């Protein structure tokens, strides 16, 4: 006994009869679905975790000297580009203005920074040297071992730098290039807690001393590379930004103000552009799958020309022949898409864990949603690909088809 939809039953039997061939064709769809879904999920998880990380900084603003153009968004004080004695600096007067504006919303502090050559024992390297107010240092940095620097000869170092150069409490560092003049020797009094990449201050690979120490080495008293602002109430971010723009950038742009939302936007759009691009490449695998489905469908039609002739001769309509082959392509597509969906949850999970480092957002709709999307694309491609072979089958002349073999 077969079901009432005998046409569907015939499609199923044809797929079963050529099991291996069907499996191989469906495998193409599986691979395509997995590729699209896991890449999509990876991008989504990257965006979600970056967004989450940056939201910790939502109440922070950075003010840097205007350099024309966009101003490097990831620049920060660690960039190592501008030296403190060039024209691109925030003056003491400008800082006072910022401080006055910020006063009722939160706090502002200055950062001096320079990238320079250093030497520890016989080992040479490069690091960012920050000059921070001694008071501020206590507020924004956490020392893991040791203490905060008080004198003009003591510094704290970031954990990555400490590990790389094997720095301990009491280690000595020579700052400056001996070929270009004198070097300054400082003593490590503390090692900082890991802080990660950040827009306002990246200390993991840096040496941090007082501003007095910094000016002693590089000069540039009252000239700052960056001003950081911490706002107490998130909603005041726009007001503070506007007020500073109003005062300092009225006649001409002198400073660039950045908040983390712009950075989030920028990273999100970078990630999504990248993801879309890689997904398009993954789409090529679906194209390959489509070709193999097309091939299998054409084979199926060509092998069954005589059978099609028989079916037509005993009263099967063209539309029913069409349906039979569309079903066949549909079965391959849907089976491939379902297996692909299961596989992409497993593989996607592994990829996200490996590439993003956390699967916290894996089951968020924005991430797991790529599975049904990829499934739909895979199944749809199959069915669309099956249309031409099916159309050909349905348009065979019954007499011609019966003569085949």
């Amino acid at each position, binding site marked *: 006994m077969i079901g009432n939809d005998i046409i569907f039953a015939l499609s199923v039997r044809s797929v079963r009869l050529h099991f291996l061939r069907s499996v191989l064709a469906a495998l193409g769809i599986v691979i395509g679905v997995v590729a699209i879904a896991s890449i999509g999920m990876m991008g989504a998880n990257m965006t979600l975790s970056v967004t989450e990380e940056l939201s910790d900084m939502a109440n922070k603003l950075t003010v840097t000297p205007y350099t024309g153009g966009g101003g490097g968004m990831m620049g920060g004080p660690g960039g190592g580009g501008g030296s403190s004695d060039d024209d691109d600096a925030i003056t003491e007067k400008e800082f006072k203005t910022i401080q006055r504006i910020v006063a009722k919303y939160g706090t502002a502090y200055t950062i001096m920074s320079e990238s320079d050559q250093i030497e520890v024992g016989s080992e040479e390297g490069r690091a960012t040297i920050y000059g921070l107010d001694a008071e501020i240092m206590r507020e924004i940095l956490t020392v893991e071992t040791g203490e905060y620097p008080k004198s003009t000869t003591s510094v704290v170092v970031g954990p990555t730098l400490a590990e790389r150069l094997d720095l301990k409490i009491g280690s000595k560092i020579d700052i400056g290039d001996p070929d270009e003049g004198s070097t300054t020797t400082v003593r490590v009094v503390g090692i900082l807690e890991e802080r990660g990449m950040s827009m306002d201050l990246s200390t993991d690979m840096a040496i941090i001393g007082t501003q007095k120490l910094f000016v002693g080495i590089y000069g540039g008293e009252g000239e700052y590379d960056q001003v950081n602002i911490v706002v107490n109430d998130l909603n005041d971010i726009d007001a503070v930004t506007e007020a500073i723009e109003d005062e300092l950038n009225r006649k001409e742009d002198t400073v660039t103000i950045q908040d983390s939302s712009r950075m989030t936007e920028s990273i999100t759009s970078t990630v999504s552009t990248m993801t879309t691009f890689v997904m398009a490449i993954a789409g090529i695998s679906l194209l390959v799958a489509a070709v193999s489905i097309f091939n299998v469908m054409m084979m199926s039609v060509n092998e069954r020309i005589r059978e099609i002739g028989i079916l037509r001769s005993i009263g*099967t309509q063209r539309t029913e022949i069409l349906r039979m082959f569309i079903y066949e392509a549909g079965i391959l597509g849907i089976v491939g898409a379902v297996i692909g969906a299961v596989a992409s949850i497993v593989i996607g999970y592994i990829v996200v864990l490996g590439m993003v480092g956390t699967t916290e957002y894996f089951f968020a709709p924005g991430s797991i949603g790529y599975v049904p999307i990829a499934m739909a694309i895979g199944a749809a491609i199959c069915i669309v690909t099956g249309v031409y072979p099916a159309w050909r089958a349905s348009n065979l002349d019954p007499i011609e088809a019966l003569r085949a073999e």
Partner: protein
Amino acid sequence: MSSPVIELDDVKKIYPLPSGDVTALRGISLRIDEGEFVAIMGPSGSGKSTLLNQIGCLDRPTSGDLFLAGKNTREMDDRELTSLRLTSIGYIFQKFNLIPLLSAYENVEYPYIMKHRKNDDTGRVRDLLAMVGIDENLSAHKPNELSGGQQQRIAIARALVNDPAILLCDEPTGNLDSQTSLQIMEILGDLHHRGRTIVMVTHNPETAEYADRTITIRDGMVA
């Protein structure tokens, strides 16, 4: 006087081929009445199958008219002709032409399902199979597991399942040994006695003896 079930009026069939047109039928006019058993004879290549294919609506005449039960088939589109093949014409081929993916039972049930949009719950399929001598055990088998004679019996059962007005047979015993041929002809003769209209192509005079009229075709014309 019985009414004509099949009527051909100057039917011509030309196959256009790259190497030149082949004229298979050169103007055939004939009428076959209800309940008749007509044998069509003639040498190989004379146009017998072509003629039967026109009557069976598998093909369209190049010119001329074909009336089935009084209706001119020229005015029917592919959908109507297909549904005529399903409900009013039973076709038996020399090569049996069963559907390889379906069991014997399912082959017979197929036209029933296509017509009624449901499985046969009337026992008709089973009865027809019993009538042609296929038992339940055999009816579960696929065509390639059965002998030629068994396949042709199943084909006859399939042709009859929708109780067609006309049964068309194109050399139904052409692929069978004489013993089996005899059994198949007994079945067809029996159907004729119960009133079925049968048109059978054959080039075997012994087979033609079962018919009550013989039309001879030569070179695409009634001789």
